């Protein structure tokens, strides 16, 4: 530790710390524009000048470029430094437009803050202001180059940090320009961060334009629920409408940034079609009346046909409190469920992952950035959990080797090795890797599970050699990490990934394991359900007439494409509690509206087993813009808030259970041993890392996979996309233009064999129905695999699971009507 003095206050910091960061430790915020903790120091803006009174070089120095030295004495308020900083502001303001009153950054603008606090107010520059032509950068980001102060933060984030090439610097001198080579939508799914990091109003949030100013908003810390990573966000609301989401710093999860799905996926909460009132048999009714009717009819079914005739469905997008209430309801009424998973395979994969995530193996996203070797199995980071791709990128920038085994055409913003392997090979791929990583057999080192089975003869020898080479590399690495998905793999692959991480760990390394789960609260759902809790198990029960009534709580499971799952149509009673206008909600006999995370808050357990709480942002109710008849400012004179009748799902479920939960988080402690900390009511800001050590990690001798019959069968894999797949964000209009057209993808060799060309219409006849779509042919798809995009335009739920086996004869090319 080096000791120095800043503004007469002593501080001790590690060697290599910059003076600007050391000052921050003392609470001294030295002005800055180009410096950003995540992007580092570049010395471009010169506004962080301080006077060094004692040190290797005295006089005015840039505190972001200056390493601390023992005995250094720094004065941030020295007149010479203040005069220079004031000069820098004057220079920057010479060309900056005076449009603060109409600028969307106004009120939370770093340039505005420093200009005002520095006292610059009189214009001495006799020349004209520089002007630029702005670019159309897509639906999310508004470009206004005239406001630019050339801090280079945008391109440093976009190109260096995130690794996308389509935003850059052009021109020199005073004509430096930050934009795209040609006008067009920004390609990076992290582009929204430009808004947060731009110290002025060059990049502003487009969907929230004209909705208000920073000081108008109700702002609350929240948790993103658009994937399993649980990034920290700050949500702004005004007039009962969610207006904007920004990244909130988290040292362990997302750092300073979030993805665009998380930033813009909130529109569902404001949607005009969102259920606000109860409905019974098509008639609008007060919420409490609907709830009473639901209780009465469910009780009737339960009495008439036995409690087994009622089933409860939930999903991983609900808060932990809601899932807990649903579980308690099932237990109290002896109803079936909760059914929280689309299929048994996914249920088992996620449950295995949750059980395997031993505390010594799990690592945070921040720790993942420190890995020097990462094997990604059955996960497509940019599509399934975008911020994971950004973390992998940071590891790669620091020299990590990254390899991906996945049948889908995985794209990442950096160089990596992709082995396109069909799902049945993934578990074996890990085993070949693990064997090479273990090296020659050693006494006392636990061999990875399932070694008895020989390598799959169907796996090409070249691929096996690559896997062995990767294993050999991992063996020499300091911190190898396995990242494993759960959407398209079975539990055997998940357990194998965990075994391998444990094996690498026992070889005296801080090796780690990182899972990607389907849904914000998938981890919690895994704790509160068993492997029978899958929707397709329930479908059998409905089909054979045992199940007469279904209660669906915040769940998309009963949907099939844009319609209702066929099985549900034969039910006597469908009760839906939801804040979304889903297909099930539209078909429900009784609809009970619930409150979203923005009104109710809630606890979500991310994929590392960290329970994090989202705070409520506003009290709820229909957005004023939808009730005010277009007036400005919209005024309605009522005693109650329109559309605010909805109860929280917990309250609704308690009414159905006939109980009342005084403290929902504390009540969770009884549901599962790892939820015990909730009883103590202690709640750290950064979340509660659950103690999973009580969980026994299963590592059974898994049966070998049935080998695919080459050419006769295909593995059908459902691919999630960054935009357009996830249940909540796909309802955001501003993200629609970013959705890629959904496709059915096959490898070029398979396409030739099947007689399919890119652009052909193809039909896949599956157990749950026909999936019809446009074909695309790629060499980056694994051979023997058909990939279906999870998109509302495709009937993907007909597949029945994230990965199923189909026969070649189930794939048809649809001849064009005109040609017939």
């Amino acid at each position, binding site marked *: 530790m080096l000791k120095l003095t800043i503004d007469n206050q002593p501080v001790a910091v590690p060697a290599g710390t910059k003076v600007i960061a050391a000052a921050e430790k003392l609470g001294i915020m030295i002005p800055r524009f180009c410096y950003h903790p995540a992007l580092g120091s570049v*010395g*471009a*803006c*010169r*506004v962080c*000048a301080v006077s060094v009174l004692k040190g290797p070089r005295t006089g*005015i120095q*840039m505190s972001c*470029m200056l390493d601390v030295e023992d005995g250094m004495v720094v004065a941030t308020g020295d007149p010479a430094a203040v*005069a*220079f900083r004031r*000069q*820098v502001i004057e*220079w*920057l303001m*010479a*060309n900056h437009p005076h449009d603060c009153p109409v600028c969307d950054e106004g009120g939370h603008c770093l340039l505005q803050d420093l200009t005002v606090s520095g006292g610059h107010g009189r214009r*001495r*520059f*006799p*020349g004209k202001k520089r002007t630029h032509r702005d670019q159309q950068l897509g639906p999310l980001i508004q470009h206004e180059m005239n406001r630019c*102060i*050339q801090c*280079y933060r945008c391109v440093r984030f976009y190109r260096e940090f995130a690794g996308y090439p389509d935003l850059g*610097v052009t*021109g*020199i*001198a*005073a*004509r*430096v320009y930050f934009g795209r080579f040609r006008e067009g939508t920004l390609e990076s799914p992290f582009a929204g961060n430009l808004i947060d990091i731009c110290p002025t109003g060059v990049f502003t949030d487009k969907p929230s334009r004209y909705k208000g100013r920073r000081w108008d908003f109700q702002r609350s810390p929240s948790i993103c629920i658009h994937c399993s990573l649980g990034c920290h966000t700050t949500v702004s609301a005004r007039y009962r409408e969610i207006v904007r989401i920004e990244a909130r710093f988290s040292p362990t999860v997302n750092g300073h940034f979030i993805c665009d799905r998380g930033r813009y996926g909130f529109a569902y909460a404001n949607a005009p079609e969102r259920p606000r009132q109860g409905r019974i048999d098509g008639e609008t009714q007060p919420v409490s009346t609907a709830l009473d009717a639901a209780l009465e009819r469910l009780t009737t079914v339960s009495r008439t046909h036995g409690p087994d005739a009622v089933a409860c469905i939930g999903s991983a997008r609900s808060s932990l409190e809601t899932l807990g209430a649903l579980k308690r309801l099932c237990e109290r009424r002896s109803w079936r469920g909760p059914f929280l998973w689309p299929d048994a395979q996914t249920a088992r994969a996620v449950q295995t992952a949750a059980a395997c995530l031993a505390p010594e193996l799990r690592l945070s996203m921040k720790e993942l950035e420190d890995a020097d070797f990462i094997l990604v199995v059955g996960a497509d980071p940019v599509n399934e959990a975008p911020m994971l791709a950004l973390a992998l990128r940071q590891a790669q920038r620091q020299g990590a080797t990254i390899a991906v085994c996945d049948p889908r055409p995985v794209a990442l913003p950096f160089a990596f090795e992709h082995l396109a392997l069909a799902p049945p090979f993934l578990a074996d791929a890990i085993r070949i890797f693990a064997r090479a990583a273990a090296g020659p057999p050693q006494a006392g080192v636990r061999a990875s599970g399932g070694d008895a089975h020989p390598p799959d003869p169907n796996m090409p020898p070249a691929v096996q050699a690559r896997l062995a080479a990767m294993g050999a590399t991992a063996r020499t690495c300091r911190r190898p990490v396995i990242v494993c998905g759960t959407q398209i793999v079975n539990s055997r692959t998940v357990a194998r990934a965990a075994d391998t991480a444990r094996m690498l760990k026992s070889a005296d390394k801080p090796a780690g394991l990182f899972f990607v789960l389907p849904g914000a609260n998938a981890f919690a759902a895994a704790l509160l359900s068993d492997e029978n809790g899958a929707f397709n198990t329930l479908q059998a029960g409905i089909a054979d007439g045992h199940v007469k009534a279904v209660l669906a709580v915040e769940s998309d499971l009963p949907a099939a494409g844009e319609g209702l799952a066929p099985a549900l149509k034969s039910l006597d009673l469908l009760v839906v509690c939801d804040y979304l206008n889903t297909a099930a909600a539209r078909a429900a006999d009784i609809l009970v509206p619930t409150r979203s995370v923005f009104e109710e808050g809630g606890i979500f357990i991310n994929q590392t087993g960290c329970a994090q709480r989202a705070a409520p942002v506003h009290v709820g109710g229909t957005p004023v813009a939808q009730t005010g008849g277009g007036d400005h400012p919209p005024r309605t004179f009522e005693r109650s808030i329109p559309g605010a009748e909805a109860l929280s799902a917990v309250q609704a479920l308690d009414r159905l259970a006939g109980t009342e939960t005084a403290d929902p988080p504390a009540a969770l402690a009884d549901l599962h041993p790892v939820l015990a900390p909730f009883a103590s009511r202690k709640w750290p800001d950064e979340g509660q890392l659950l103690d999973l050590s009580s969980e026994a990690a299963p590592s059974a001798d898994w049966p070998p996979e049935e080998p695919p019959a080459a050419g006769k069968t295909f593995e059908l894999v459902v691919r999630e996309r960054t935009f357009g797949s996830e249940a909540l964000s796909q309802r955001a209009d501003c993200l629609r233009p970013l959705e890629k057209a959904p496709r059915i993808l096959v490898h070029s060799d398979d396409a030739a064999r099947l007689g399919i060309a890119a652009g052909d219409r193809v039909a896949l006849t599956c157990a749950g129905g026909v999936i019809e779509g446009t074909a695309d042919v790629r060499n980056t798809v694994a051979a023997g695999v058909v990939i279906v995009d999870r998109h509302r335009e495709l009937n993907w739920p007909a597949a029945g699971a994230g990965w199923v086996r189909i026969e070649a004869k189930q794939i048809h090319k649809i001849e064009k009507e005109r040609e017939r």
Partner: protein
Amino acid sequence: MYPQVLFQNRQPDRTATIKTYRAGGGYRALADVLQQNAAARVRQVLLDAALLGRGGAAFPAGVKLSTVAEDAPYPRYVVCNADEMEPGTFKDRVLIFADPHQLIEGLILAGFAVHAETGIIFIRPEYEGAAAILEREVRVAEKAGYLGKDILGSGFDYRIVVHRSGGRYICGEVTAQINALQGKRPNPLQPPPYPTEKGLWQKPTVLQNVETLCCMPHIVAKGADWFKNLSLTPSGAGTKIFGISGRVQQPGCYELPMGVPLSEIIEDHAGGMIPGSEFKACLPGGASTGFLPARHYHIPMDFEALKKAGNRLGTGAIMVFDHKTCLVGVTLNLMEFFARESCGWCTPCREGLPFIRELLYEIESGRGKPEYVPMLQEMSRHLWHAYCAFAPGAAAPLASLLDEFEDEIQDHIKRKACPFSALT
């Protein structure tokens, strides 16, 4: 007549061939050190000769070569900076046109001294003729066995690549040039790491000016003492190519001993001031040096003496202004150049220079206000806190204008017009 070293083969209308160069002793130094495998000796003799970099910064060339550590990684690079863009400077072009093999031998010697395997000549695109000559003569040197694999049986491999610049002033800055060579924006990089440690593609890179490299074969052949004795002053060493322009009768490039008095350069070599002109001031070493007023008319032109006078020898490009030249106008012209050529990285350079240009423009146009003078004074001081040496360089003529010729500025403001407009 002083001894001609770098210009010994300079002839009107003709580029010296390898034959001419060899006849004058060329490539002998190279053959010598290669045979004796005496890389350390090359570094030592250049250190002893006190050869200061001729590109403007006057960093000791021998020290720069010696900073490449013995155990530094390979490959290593030597870059010849032929991006001659300092206004008023045209010596490198003359050197290349006069005697290209002198530069080639210098570049090979520098490469040999640091065990480099590639020499790169970074040349501005306006010098296409010089670039073509260099490309041709590099092939000639290859055929003659001075370049390629196992040069003269010594086991030393070396090649030379001619690289045409995108053509911006900032590309002459060492770290910006290295960025440009890698296909990046030519933004300077503040050391550490120094290029001699991590330069091109993170490998040790030595960057030298054309004239500096041209001195090397002569120093290696004739020794450090001979080189030092070429200078008229004990503080200097060697000869210097002075490029003189402006209000003199015979502008041009002259090779003169270091330390030659300014008055002698103007009167004896450049043919004196043009009739009717009186010497008012000159820029002694390009646009990024200060105005040297008439009281320094007899100053010995070497690095040390000019430093003492609060100025710099820079590139040795002397621009002479007479009593009818408006120095506010000259400075405005220079600021136009600097404001245009800034790389745009840091605020003082990108925003400060156009601000200053605008103030000077107002003054020159007769719209100046008295408060502009203290503003200019403060800004010229603040330019020193820029990211690289570009803005401090640009501040030099401005600061000297304010120090030495403030009356001229006040005159503009008082008369609400340029007092020189009637004179020309």
